[in-house]
């Protein structure tokens, strides 16, 4: 019997496994009909303790397009969490009714707890300000698909905004550290710098990076610009949130400084950090990014359920 695999952190997948999942996503995009019944008889449980539009609907659409079914809850209020049920007991309940779990929870490490107790694969769909590995698969698939050479090596990425609490940023940095020749430009106010554990890892692995406070000056050097929202729910203090929320706003004027083939990504939702005028710019890839997200999740579901042979034994 194959060992149970989960996706809690991007590091749970080797570089080769990640590439094979992205390849599978490409194959699904090319021939979706061939995959439309792969999950017949299977169900995904989407356990969302925190609000979500894109991620939950993307998981559900992914499973439906694979011919499977969907069950779950979309807020903690509509689950037994309101009665004080633990994450461990919740997953031990849900595993009786579903074949795979996607969990989003406001607490960091919640998905790791779910994986510890579940007898079925668990996917981290976002755990507080910690990680969001399926957004990373989405980001990697988008970058690889839209870059001229379809490569995830040898480019400069600027990550802008809330790097402290931005779980999509943490996951993406972790994943891109495994690639060759990726240079990081970290653009944030001092209060929202990338966490020390990630900065330490960049230094230890001699991966080139710079930390800057202003977006304009670095725009011309970027191949990818990854914008993020300053998230109110990550702050304990309303004053800090109000002070920092408008730190970085991308508009048409700043886009004029960028390379002609730079791509702008954003995990969405945005508030005001990308002006609506940028949407019409051919370099704005954030809506296409969502489209890729469904295919990345379809590939991941097939991989974790063992329905397509893309995963090796766990490291």
């Amino acid at each position, binding site marked *: 019997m194959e060992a149970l695999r989960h996706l809690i952190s991007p590091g749970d997948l080797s570089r080769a496994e990640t590439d094979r999942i992205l390849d599978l996503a490409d194959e699904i995009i090319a021939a979706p009909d061939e995959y439309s019944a792969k999950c017949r008889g299977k169900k995904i449980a989407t356990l969302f303790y925190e609000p979500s539009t894109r991620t939950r609907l993307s998981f559900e659409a992914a499973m439906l397009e694979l011919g499977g079914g969907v069950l779950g809850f979309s807020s903690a209020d509509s689950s037994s969490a309101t009665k004080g049920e*633990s994450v461990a007991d919740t997953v031990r309940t849900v595993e009786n009714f579903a074949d795979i779990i996607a969990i989003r*929870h406001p*607490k*960091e*490490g*919640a998905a*790791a707890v779910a994986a510890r107790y579940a007898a079925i694969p668990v996917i981290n769909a976002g*755990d507080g*300000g910690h990680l969001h590995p399926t957004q990373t698969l989405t980001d990697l698939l988008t970058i690889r698909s839209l870059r001229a050479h379809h490569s995830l090596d040898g480019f400069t990425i600027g990550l802008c905004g809330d790097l402290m609490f931005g779980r999509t940023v943490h996951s993406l940095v972790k994943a891109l550290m495994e690639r060759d020749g990726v240079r990081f430009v970290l653009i944030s106010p001092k209060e929202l710098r990338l966490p*020390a554990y990630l900065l330490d890892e960049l230094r230890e692995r001699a991966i080139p990076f710079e930390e800057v406070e202003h977006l304009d000056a670095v725009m011309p050097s970027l191949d990818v610009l990854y914008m993020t929202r300053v998230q109110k729910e990550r702050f304990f203090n309303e004053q800090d949130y109000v002070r920092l929320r408008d730190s970085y706003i991308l508009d048409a004027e700043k886009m004029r400084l960028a390379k002609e083939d730079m791509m702008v990504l954003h995990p969405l939702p945005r508030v005001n950090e990308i002006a609506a005028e940028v949407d019409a710019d051919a370099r704005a890839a954030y809506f296409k990014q969502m489209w890729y997200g469904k295919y990345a999740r379809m590939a991941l579901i097939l991989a974790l359920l063992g329905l397509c042979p893309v995963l090796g034994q766990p490291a």
Partner: protein
Amino acid sequence: MNVDSIERGVVIDHIAAGKGMDIVRLLDLEKMTCPVAVIRNARSGKIGKKDIIKIEDEIDVNLDVLGFIDPNITVNIIEDSRIVEKRRIAPPNQVVNVVQCKNPRCITSTERDLPQIFLRKPGSKVYRCRYCEQEYQPRD
């Protein structure tokens, strides 16, 4: 109890000055019924000032806890007033239910009956929470 020497028991030596009481707490020595002495700020040729703990009983000291606090600590087993064994301390790869994660956003702050696990980063003395990856910051 003579704090200069014990007949039979355990001497935990070369504890960084100020850490002795942390070790008393982490090893639950407060609950022991045998004589336990904590010597604080003793002179040390090796580290300047040090704390020493002497326990006049045969106990199985949790070396993982000591290795987690400071792998330079030494543990001497005493029989007939002589050191019969010096135990080597090494930083353990993980510690379970020794310290709590201090990150208020960590799942360990709300999930019941969840073991508090800290994993050592390979090749370093840094420990991170198994769940949220926050680094353990000892009190200074």
